[in-house]
């Protein structure tokens, strides 16, 4: 269960979104929508604990959270298996055998990650999520450069494995993922220019 | 064995070091050669 109450977040010292609130219960996903630059990335990073919120509460166990974006911690000098194995070790989990099927990586297991195509690399980045065993995922445009088939594959994994196992996902995306989840448009939360907070507050 | 006089250590060390290095080079080259030949045969026979 993830409860977000009145979270205000800032980037570059300037408030971007103010007083965002929502709940997501176990086994459910939420899709964040909004035009470029509204603050989706900022919000997700704040919720995942990568940057401090200006205000508001995120009610969830920090050990359940994980954030994923294009910068997905894939080492181009290591093979696909070595990459996944590393993150599995860090989180103290084994690499599930199903992961190769789920992300269509079976043929690429021994390939050096640097030689993958854009979409294949993205699939590897997503597979990391299946390895770390975290319950609450914050996904920032997870399906960028994936083809239609791979998008379906990912949606399937998300619903049949992650959500079905009691997980939660908050996803920012401009594309239709084909999963059945409520959407939240962030446009109304755009921060007022004059609201307080931010690093410069003391000087205003 | 010829009498090397007071320079025995130097002369023998020079021969030891040189022949040792050559041996290392030859053995390494040889080992890699054998390995590659075996690996190639394995692959060619499987494919």
């Amino acid at each position, binding site marked *: 269960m993830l409860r977000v109450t009145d979270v205000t977040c800032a980037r570059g010292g300037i408030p971007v979104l103010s007083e965002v609130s929502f709940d997501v219960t176990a086994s459910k996903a939420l899709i964040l929508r909004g035009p470029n630059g509204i603050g989706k990335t900022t919000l997700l990073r704040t919720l995942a604990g990568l940057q401090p919120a200006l205000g508001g509460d995120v009610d969830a166990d920090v050990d359940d959270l994980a954030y994923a974006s294009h910068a997905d911690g894939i080492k181009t000098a290591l093979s696909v298996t070595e990459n996944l194995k590393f993150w599995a070790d860090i989180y103290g989990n084994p690499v599930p055998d199903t992961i190769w099927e789920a992300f269509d990586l079976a043929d690429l297991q021994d390939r050096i990650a640097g030689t993958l195509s854009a979409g294949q690399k993205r699939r590897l980045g997503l597979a990391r999520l299946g390895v770390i065993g975290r319950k609450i995922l914050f996904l920032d445009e997870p399906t960028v450069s994936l083809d239609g088939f791979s998008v379906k594959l990912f949606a399937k994994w998300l619903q049949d494995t992650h959500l079905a196992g009691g997980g939660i996902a908050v996803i920012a995306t401009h594309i239709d993922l084909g999963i059945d989840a409520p959407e939240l448009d962030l446009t109304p939360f755009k921060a007022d220019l004059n609201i307080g907070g931010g690093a410069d507050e003391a000087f205003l | 064995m010829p009498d*090397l*006089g007071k320079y*025995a250590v*130097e*002369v023998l060390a020079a021969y030891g070091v*040189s*022949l040792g290095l050559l041996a290392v080079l*030859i053995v390494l080259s040889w080992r890699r050669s054998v390995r590659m030949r075996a690996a*190639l045969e394995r*692959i060619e026979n499987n494919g």
Partner: protein
Amino acid sequence: MSFWEYANPKKFMGWTAPVLPYVFGAAALCLTVGLIWGFFFTPDDFRQGSTVKIIYLHVPAATMATGTWFMMLAASLIWVVRRHHVSALAARAAAPIGLTMTLIGLLTGAIWGQPMWGTYWAWDPRLTSFLILFLFYLGYIAMWEAIEDPDTAADLTSVLCMVGSVFAILSRYAVNFWNQGLHQGASLSLDAEEHVSDVFWQPLVICIVGFVLLFVGLVLMRTRTEIRARRIRALEARARRA
């Protein structure tokens, strides 16, 4: 049939296989004869005593060390101009041999230096240029190892080899300018004045021939290995795509 046909990998593998044992045989013969003659059956020098025996390793190794670089330079030029894979691989195969020869030259020289000059190492121009050569070999080998795509690696190492050669010559002059040395002049020159006496000269020549043959044999063997490695790479890549 053009001369370059022999540089086709398959042809190369074909003609080198029967030649290789003879080359190694001849090398072993020359080295055994030359070194045994030199070590057991030559007199001591009146000034240098028994240390003169080091010459049978030092000079051939030093000669091969520079010779190997010239061979690599030639192979690099052939690759750049004609793009024969075998020549690039031969340059790659030769580098570690050159490195070893340089090391032998340096170490035997150092050991010889202690009794002769009273120091293992002096910043003599000849010695110093050798040290720089050693660095060039290291850089060249590291470069080959660091680049994944073999053709790009061949291209870049060729450029390095060519530019490096120019700078190696430049360094040689610079080093001479910087320090006048202790080291012998060219004792192999045909000029009778400088010539080492015949007793040392004959086994020395045999040793040099032995080193050359050993070098040729090793280069051929290592080039064959490199060709096999490339073939493995190609086959594995193809299998992976299947």
